[in-house]
Structure formats: structure tokens, C-alpha cells
């Protein structure tokens, strides 16, 4: 069923963007986290996504020699951003010179990620609605002259 393939593809895109938003929210939430429960510093994460071949779509595209499908999260990689050093003598996590290391998170870049994720999610919803509208127009064939 190829309209179901369109649904599955848009849905996988939404899943990826949702993951991107979750990870960005996690990064933003930990801007001021000096250490985790295990004592190590939080390292900002980044979502790496890639194409996922969908068996339902492969059959339709095989005639053109292409393999297409939805998207999927390939991996969650910690960025190698250097820690942000803040002079806070007396802080329990301060080093011998009085500096506390916070995760190297760039709030501006994270906000940009956030906006991109939301807009891409919206684009996936629009694509899905277009597929749905197309299927509904097909069901209108021969019915009541609309």
C-alpha cells in the first residue's frame, strides 16, 4: 500500500526530529550542570540521522533502481566542545585554582537546532497531510460529483 508508505516515511522523519528536539532540550537543561550523578561532566550530544530503507517503499522504487525510505537516528554522538571554565571559588566542584568546568554548550546554536527541528517536523506533517488529502481525493472518485 503506497499511501501507507508515505505515512511511514513522514512518521520516521517526525521521530527523528522529535529525538533532535529531545536531545537539544537535554543540552539546554544541562547548561549549568557542573557534574552528573557519577561525577563526570555532561558532554553535549548531537543527533546524527540518516536514510532508512523501508521495505514497503523499496518495491515501488525498485523500478527506477533507487532505494528510498524514511529517516532514522544513526547515532547520538557527544560533541568535543571544550568545557566552559567559570571562576567560582568555594563551589564544591571547583578545581585547585577555583575554576568550575561547565559543559561547552552554545545556547544560540541550540536554539537554532530547536527551531530547525520544529520546522522540519512541521514539514513532515504537511507532507503527511498532502498524502492523506491525495488518498481522500482518490476516494472521492465517482462519488456525488464533488
Amino acid at each position, binding site marked *: 500500500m503506497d499511501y501507507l508508505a508515505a*505515512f511511514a516515511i*513522514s*512518521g520516521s522523519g517526525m521521530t527523528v526530529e*522529535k529525538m533532535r528536539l529531545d536531545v537539544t532540550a537535554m543540552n539546554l537543561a544541562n547548561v549549568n550542570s557542573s557534574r552528573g550523578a557519577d561525577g563526570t561532566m555532561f558532554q553535549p550530544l548531537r543527533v546524527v540521522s540518516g536514510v532508512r530503507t523501508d521495505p514497503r517503499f523499496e518495491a515501488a522504487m525498485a523500478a527506477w533502481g533507487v532505494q528510498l525510505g524514511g529517516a532514522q537516528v544513526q547515532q547520538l554522538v557527544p560533541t568535543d566542545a571544550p568545557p566552559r571554565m567559570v571562576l567560582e571559588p568555594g563551589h564544591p566542584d571547583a578545581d585547585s585554582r577555583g575554576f568550575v568546568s561547565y559543559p561547552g554548550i552554545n545556547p544560540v546554536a541550540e536554539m537554532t537546532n530547536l527551531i530547525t527541528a520544529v520546522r522540519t517536523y512541521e514539514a513532515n506533517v504537511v507532507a*503527511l497531510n498532502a498524502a492523506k488529502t491525495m488518498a481522500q481525493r482518490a*476516494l472521492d472518485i465517482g*462519488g456525488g460529483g464533488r
Partner: protein
Amino acid sequence: MSIDAVGFIPSATAQAIESKLPGSAVGTGTGTGAAPASGFGDWLASEIAQVNDKIQSADKKVQDLALGKASNLHDVMIALEDTKLSFQLMVQIRSRVLEAYQDILRMQV
């Protein structure tokens, strides 16, 4: 089952349609070996049963969402839309069948 009178359906298409219907004489046997009496009615019943299964699984997903077990919202919405389209298709088939039935009822004897 012969559709010779309806000339605009290519015979290859007609054969393909007939071979999909269980219990049709032309069908080369899909392996299930349905009873000869079964036909369009049984096929329609199985399709309706599939739509019913879809409705029930969508219902289950909404229940999971309400219970906080769903992993994401869009999967539930996509399942609902999918179910809605299947149901609309079923309603369209029903109205076409009823139209044909009423056309036959109106026939002059």
C-alpha cells in the same frame, strides 16, 4: 464469473481481479482452497474484518497514550489517520455495492 458484457475492462485486468477473489472459477488457485460457494461476500467480509482490526489497534494505541505508555504522539495520530482512510474506503465500497443493488431492484421485469 464473466465480465464480457463490460467491454471497457481489459480481459487481463478482469482475470487479475477474478484470481484475487477467493472461490472464483477463473482463479488459478491461491492455495487456500476456499469453498466454491464463497465469493465477493466472503472477500468483503474479510476486508471489513481487517478494517475492524485496524480500528481496534488504533483504539489500543489511544488507550496506551492515555495511560502514558505511548512513546510518541505522532505514531498515534498516524494510526488514527490510517484507520480513518481505511474506514472511508470501506464506506465507499459499501455505497457502490448498495447503488448496484438498488439499480438491480429498479430494473423493469
